[in-house]
């Protein structure tokens, strides 16, 4: 083996070797995309921006750091955020592992439909899900509470459930996060070679113990990658805590960033927001360093080898009904109820709790209002085109980044990977401002006002997710497969395209789907960058929601996105199964 590695090194010498060229290309693109927002975050954090933009002239100062670090609130809110984020990620990851194991590794009936259904909520913005749950479980007249009170004769006119609580926030946050985590780890489960489990079982270890002692540790890269990405993201999550935590008196760290960037009058205080963002930035750095330390012995996790890779489905036997029951319970809570309430709101002339009386008011007016919005047709075309391009570009770039990080052999090979991840810590509004500033002030590429500025912005933003996803998947593939190809005279680049990429297909597809759906529904970045000529649907409709009366429209949009995501997932899964029919 060592001899082959040496041979491979000898075969690709000089500064123009294929892997170095790929490294240079990937690094240049990633640095070009990611560095400006990070640079603006750091610069802003050192500028007083109460009445000016960070890109406008002004002295450097430590005042933002003094304000951030001297307020006792910062620590309390960060602690609240950590509790919320950690609980959601752990809960969502546990459910995702169970669901992905059932749909990828067992003979669960109808598992492809189940997998597609599980992903449906991914198209709903977090805020819409939270609002939906207030209609279902607010203590006063939430549907579930009203029905429960009727059924169990509970008096008092309140409860028994209260979505305005820490447990309510964690519950909705967990359900909201699960589909994305599922996508992130599904590829790794799908690629898993059951030979390891079989060897364990042949040695007398029970199946469940084998799963726990063999499968889980071997899937550590994917699970850990998903965990750290979502821990960093959940710390920045504002939507669910803002809606559900407000009435429970639970404030989170991201509230500070929101308040700094959404003033009642005057300009947003980007400097202060960046000061808070720097805390997330440092947290993200610590997380990625920990991840790297834990993943040092990459070969330990290579489960896709050249030795008769033969996926095997585990028969559920008598547990089939329990499995179906748990899937049904989850689907009811995470898919049926939120999708139902969303659909209900979209069919009402104004938001109302489902009732027999309200049935008489069912109308398609929100949909017709949506279709009648100015620029809507152009926005639909732009949205679809942007979504497809962004998903494809992001996944190719992320795959290369992850591949370089895992397989690279020269100094700095993991720099793009590091940059993409810490990019997660840049607050979305600061990120969008950086992109607008760059393409307005330095017209390197004259793309302001075109769809390409959105393509670049989204690609940059989503690379942090997809690179984590692909990183876990690349580690799974044993280097011997690539080495075998190269010793047969095939170049490293062709090997990547012909050997590595097909093996990464399940993860690649899952990442593509996640990015495509998120690009469909992206709002924060889009509203800062869209003009008349590059309008996108989510930005058009989201701005309606800022003013009273837009909930029905946002619900109608979310229903359309949910249907689109269902179709995309369904078709994608079918194509994937044709490629890998197991």
């Amino acid at each position, binding site marked *: 083996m060592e001899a082959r590695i040496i041979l491979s090194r000898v075969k690709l010498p000089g500064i123009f070797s294929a892997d170095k060229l790929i490294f240079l290309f990937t690094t240049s693109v990633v640095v070009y995309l990611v560095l400006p927002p990070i640079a603006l975050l750091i610069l802003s954090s050192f500028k007083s921006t109460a009445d000016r933009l960070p890109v406008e002239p002004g002295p450097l100062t430590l005042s933002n750091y003094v304000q951030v670090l001297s307020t006792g609130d910062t620590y309390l809110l960060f602690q609240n955020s950590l509790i919320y984020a950690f609980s959601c990620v752990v809960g969502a990851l546990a459910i995702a592992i169970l669901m992905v194991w059932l749909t990828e590794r067992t003979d669960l009936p109808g598992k492809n439909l189940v997998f597609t259904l599980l992903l449906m909520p991914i198209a709903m913005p977090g805020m819409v899900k939270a609002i939906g749950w207030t209609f279902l479980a607010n203590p006063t007249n939430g549907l579930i509470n009203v029905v429960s009170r009727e059924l169990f004769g509970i008096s008092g006119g309140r409860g028994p459930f209260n979505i305005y609580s820490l447990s309510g926030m964690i519950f909705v946050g967990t359900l909201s996060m699960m589909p994305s985590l599922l996508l992130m780890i599904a590829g790794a489960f799908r690629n898993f070679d059951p030979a390891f489990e079989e060897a364990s079982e042949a040695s007398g270890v029970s199946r469940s113990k084998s799963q726990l002692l063999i499968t889980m540790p071997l899937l550590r890269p994917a699970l850990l990658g998903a965990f750290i990405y979502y821990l960093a993201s959940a710390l920045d999550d504002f939507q669910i805590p803002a809606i559900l935590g407000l009435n429970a008196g639970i404030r989170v760290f991201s509230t500070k960033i929101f308040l700094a960037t959404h003033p009642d009058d005057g300009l947003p205080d980007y400097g202060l927001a960046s000061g808070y963002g720097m805390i997330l930035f440092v947290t993200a750095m610590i997380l990625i360093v920990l991840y790297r330390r834990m993943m040092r012995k990459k070969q330990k996790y290579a489960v896709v080898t050249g030795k008769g890779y033969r996926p095997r489905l585990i028969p559920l036997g008598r547990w089939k009904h329990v499995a179906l029951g748990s899937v049904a319970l989850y689907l009811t809570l995470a898919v049926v109820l939120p999708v139902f309430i969303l659909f209900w709101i979209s069919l009402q002339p104004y938001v109302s709790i489902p009732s027999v009386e309200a049935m008489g008011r069912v109308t398609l007016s929100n949909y017709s209002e949506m279709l009648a919005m100015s620029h809507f047709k152009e926005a639909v075309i732009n949205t679809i085109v942007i979504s497809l391009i962004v998903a494809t570009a992001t996944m190719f770039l992320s795959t290369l980044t992850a591949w370089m990080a895992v397989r690279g052999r020269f100094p700095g090979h993991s720099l793009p990977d590091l940059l993409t991840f810490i990019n997660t810590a840049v607050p979305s509004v600061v990120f969008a401002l950086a992109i607008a500033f760059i393409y307005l002030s330095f017209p390197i590429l004259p793309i302001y*006002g075109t769809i390409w500025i959105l393509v670049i912005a989204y690609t940059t933003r989503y690379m942090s997710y997809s690179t984590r996803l692909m990183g876990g998947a690349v580690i799974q593939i044993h280097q011997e497969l690539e080495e075998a190809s190269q010793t047969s005279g095939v170049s490293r680049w062709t090997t990547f395209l012909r050997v590595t990429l097909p093996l990464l297909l399940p993860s690649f597809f899952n990442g593509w789907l996640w990015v495509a759906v998120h690009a469909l529904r992206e709002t924060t970045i889009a509203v800062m960058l869209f003009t*008349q000529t590059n309008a996108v649907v989510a930005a058009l409709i989201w701005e309606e929601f800022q003013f009273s009366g837009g909930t029905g429209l946002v619900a109608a949009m979310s229903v359309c996105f949910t249907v689109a995501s269902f179709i995309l997932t369904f078709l994608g899964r079918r194509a994937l199964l044709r490629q890998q029919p197991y």
Partner: protein
Amino acid sequence: MKKQSFFLAFVIGAVTTLTLGGMAQAQKQPWEKVLDRLYPAAKAEGQVTLYMSSEFPLGSKEGEAKFKKRFPGIEFSFIKLSRSKAPARIILETRAGRNTVDGYWDYPETAKAMIDRGLISKLNPAELTDQPEKWNFMFDHNLPVVGQFINTFYYNTKLVSKSELPKRYEDLLDPKWKGKLAMDARGPRGFTHLPLIWGEEKFWRYIKALKEQNPIWTRRCTTTMDKVLTGEALIGCTTSSLEKRHKAKGQPVEYLLLNPVSVKPTILLPIKGSPHPNAIKLVIAWLLSPEGVEAVGKTGYGLLQPGTGFYETLKALGAEFFLGGKLTIDQMIAMGKTRKKIGKTWGIIK
């Protein structure tokens, strides 16, 4: 003979046309003449685009149709963009000399960031209206007040009868409203004028007592209104016009006017270096014309003028507007500060 007849017919026709045209011109109202003066230059630009954070600038599709009918050849469009984003975009675009919009409609305090940077075109009120003394032009740029938002309360008409409704601000402290009020946790604008009437001490005592009513906290107008519509809250306080979005759709919500009602002016700023500087002037002039005032006045965010639909609706409900709706920029800034202080005093979101 034929030639003579033809010549005679031509002369008669020409004289008739000129006479009728002259009469029509003479019959035109002064405000129409103002618009006619501005129209040719605007038409040559052919287009106008606005940013607006809230509603439809020309008073719904109906208003837009009127504008288009009066000014054929000018394409009007607007981009809805919240006030946390629009000023930053305008500053960046103007600095780069690449403006994509011509005007921005929002609160004067928000506009101040752009005025301070000299990003606003100066206007001459006499060029825009035949009655410059009638309208409120703010700042030394003579930026026109083109709309007025009312900040007041709303109630669910299915769940609360008229007789039960609070009559004064103090009535909101009645225990029967405990847990039944929906309030913006950052401080509802509907209270911010009260320190100017009651004095600071009474006002802050009131605000603290209001928190003891355990309101259902929100942080945006949409959510506040949704809480009232679904019946989770019975009364909400937010900035919203019910006319177009709610009452027109038969929603069970009505104004609860506690006097004096807080009114907040909005202005339309022409952006310096905009691609269509004459067209934006025409839009402003039209908004200050009786036709524009009436069109936007129906919606609930136009100018509160006697004779317009929204004004008459509120007056019929007994509304009295704080300072007659004419606030100075200093009063508005003071009210903005009060709002922030309410949010801090409540401490729900800070």
